[in-house]
């Protein structure tokens, strides 16, 4: 159960984007979401292929967190369809999402400070033996997952999460998400509160998830981080997906323009492949 997926063949960094015939793991088509009078998402389309990291960019309030929660089952979209492994699915709760293999690392992490690393990683999915908590088995599995992800520097996986540094907490939250045979991991601002070294370690961790063949979506304000790990980039502007394509199509300048105006050089996004085809 706990083993992180083995890397499938051909899961390559920056490989030819989903377009090349392969069905993306997760496909969003025409997702609308509003809260009362506030329309947060307008007909959003997005592809999240396996073995690739998709960076989701957007200004504050663009709808990145809402989109994440729609995929994670915490919100229900008003309109639109989610396809998982090619099949239309309804994700009505976080339980539904977990059952599909979708796990989320939220912006605020949501770890219980008073519980230790093992207890946090198994929260809500404790293993029992004779009706009582099977601490030793859970500890072994947690240790195994952490070492697969090479999160090795905590003193003891029995220490309370309160005693961890920000980067270690983030690593625990990620490890918690990938321990359950997950296929898609959504990370909302995983480096927002971290220093340089800790950010580095989280980015390494994201790279390792890709190497294990998972589909990853990373939300970040920091374009350095996005360009560092993302194979694909998607930009939300006021609830609309204004650009989505291989990272090679973008540079910092254009991403910032999409984020702030919805266009670059005054023109809407067109994938480089499509543009070449026309030219």
């Amino acid at each position, binding site marked *: 159960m706990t083993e992180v997926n083995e890397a499938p063949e051909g899961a390559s960094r920056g490989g030819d984007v989903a377009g090349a015939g392969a069905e993306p793991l997760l496909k969003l088509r025409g997702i609308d979401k509003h809260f009362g009078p506030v329309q947060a998402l307008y007909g959003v389309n997005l592809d999240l292929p396996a073995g690739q990291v998709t960076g989701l960019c957007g200004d504050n309030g663009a709808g990145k967190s809402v989109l994440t929660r729609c995929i994670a089952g915490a919100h229900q979209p008003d309109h639109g369809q989610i396809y998982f492994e090619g099949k239309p699915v309804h994700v009505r709760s976080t339980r539904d999402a977990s059952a599909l293999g979708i796990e989320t690392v939220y912006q605020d992490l949501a770890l219980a*400070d008073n519980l230790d690393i093992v207890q946090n990683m198994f929260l809500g999915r404790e293993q029992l033996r004779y009706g009582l908590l099977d601490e030793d088995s859970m500890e072994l599995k947690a240790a195994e997952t952490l070492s697969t992800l090479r999160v090795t520097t905590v003193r003891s996986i029995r220490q309370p999460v309160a005693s961890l540094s920000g980067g270690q907490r983030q690593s625990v939250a990620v490890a918690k998400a990938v321990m359950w045979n997950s296929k898609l991991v959504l990370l909302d601002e995983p480096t927002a509160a971290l220093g340089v070294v*800790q950010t580095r370690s989280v980015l*390494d961790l994201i790279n390792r998830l890709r190497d294990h063949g998972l589909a990853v979506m990373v939300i970040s304000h920091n374009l350095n981080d996005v360009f560092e790990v993302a194979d694909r980039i998607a930009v939300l502007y006021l609830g609309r997906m204004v650009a989505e394509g291989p990272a090679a199509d973008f540079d910092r300048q254009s991403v910032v323009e999409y984020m702030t105006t919805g266009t670059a050089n005054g023109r809407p996004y067109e994938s480089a492949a499509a543009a070449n085809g026309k030219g």
Partner: protein
Amino acid sequence: MTADPGETPAGTAGAGTADLTLDATVAAADVPPELTAQSLRQYLGASWLRIRSGNSGVLPVVLAIVIVAVVFEIITPEHAFLRPSNLVYIFGLSTVYMVLAIAETVVLLLAEVDLSVGAVALIGGVIAFKLVQQPGPNWPWWAAMLAALAICGAIGAFQGALTSLLRIPSFVVTLAGFLLFSGILVVILGGADSTVSLNTSDPNQNTIYDMVQGLISPVIGWIVLAVVVVAVGASQWLRVASRRRRGLVAPPLGLIATRIVILAIVGAAVVIVCSVNRGSSLKSVTGIPWVIPIVLVVLGAWTLVLQRTRYGRYIYAIGGNPEAARRAGVSLPRIRIVAFALCSATAALGGILLGSFFYGQYSTNTADPGQLVLYTVAAAVIGGVSLFGGRGKAIHGVLGGLLIGGIAYGVSLLSLGSLSTPLQYILPGGVLLAAVLIDVLSRRGGSPAGV
């Protein structure tokens, strides 16, 4: 990018290795010593570091118990405080606070509070006493007790539902409950000056009377103690062996042995104190009150529920971070309602013990729900249960209850006349304030992640 103050530049691990060496001193203080210590010596060192940083577990309350015992022994007339007869009396009185404090601990762990425990406990006690009356309902003692626990459990569930479904602060709901049930208590007692008492010549009623007043002979006490020590020792030993076998870090055997020895010494001290003749030369009184094993069973049951079951784990999770628990699929209202119900049912047992402690008699004089709830919350917090939720164990309620019982009885021994009653409030109040200060300060100092 924001700089992280908790970060050390030392954490430059080799490429591809996630994070990071902790800031050694801060972090070490937050890690339970048995996790890292490989020898008794290291354990003591790590423990000392933790105590200095405010993460001290049961140590402050144990220290406070010792200080209270020594001080009262010195200042009571004829140095009577530590006489076996007084100690046994204190055990009896304290067990009431112990059981109530364990009940309160469950609710405090959720970062809620139950101010109605005192009133509800007394209602439970009076219900049980009324149901065994003869002439009257004449129920068997166990049926009367179960009925009391069930009725109080329902009261708790109702209060829990109000706080968790309507999100009214538990402080307000249970304050209203305290007033409401204090009034109802007088009604079911049968008026302002009424009493209800047990007839000890009826074996059925005498069973309840004996819960605190009844004695186990010292010989049986020694046998029970031996069985308990061997059982605890064997289970700890097996646990360490099993963890070693599976390649997990286990506490050093020296530490386990030390703990077992301490348990045996404390147990033997209790049995010895209870074995001394505390009657007169004409009629000797020796033996261990039944209530001591009863409290140990309550302690064991709650420790099992809180530490070893999924339900207990969710109580801690909700107290630590309700949002994390919710996202993990935990039903917060269900856990909270059940916790309030179990708290009130456990309190009802405390109320029955209280009536038994007062020689099987309940009156509006012995039953002061206000003082009882103050002592209960004080006992839990003094024992080391955090008011902010998520931190504390059943054993903390037991130790806090002993401390409060010791103070309450010590003050009454001081023959201070009119000063005695105010001191019954002032002393526990002062100790409670000190305990809350420790709680707040350790929370502030003990969290390097800054959350």
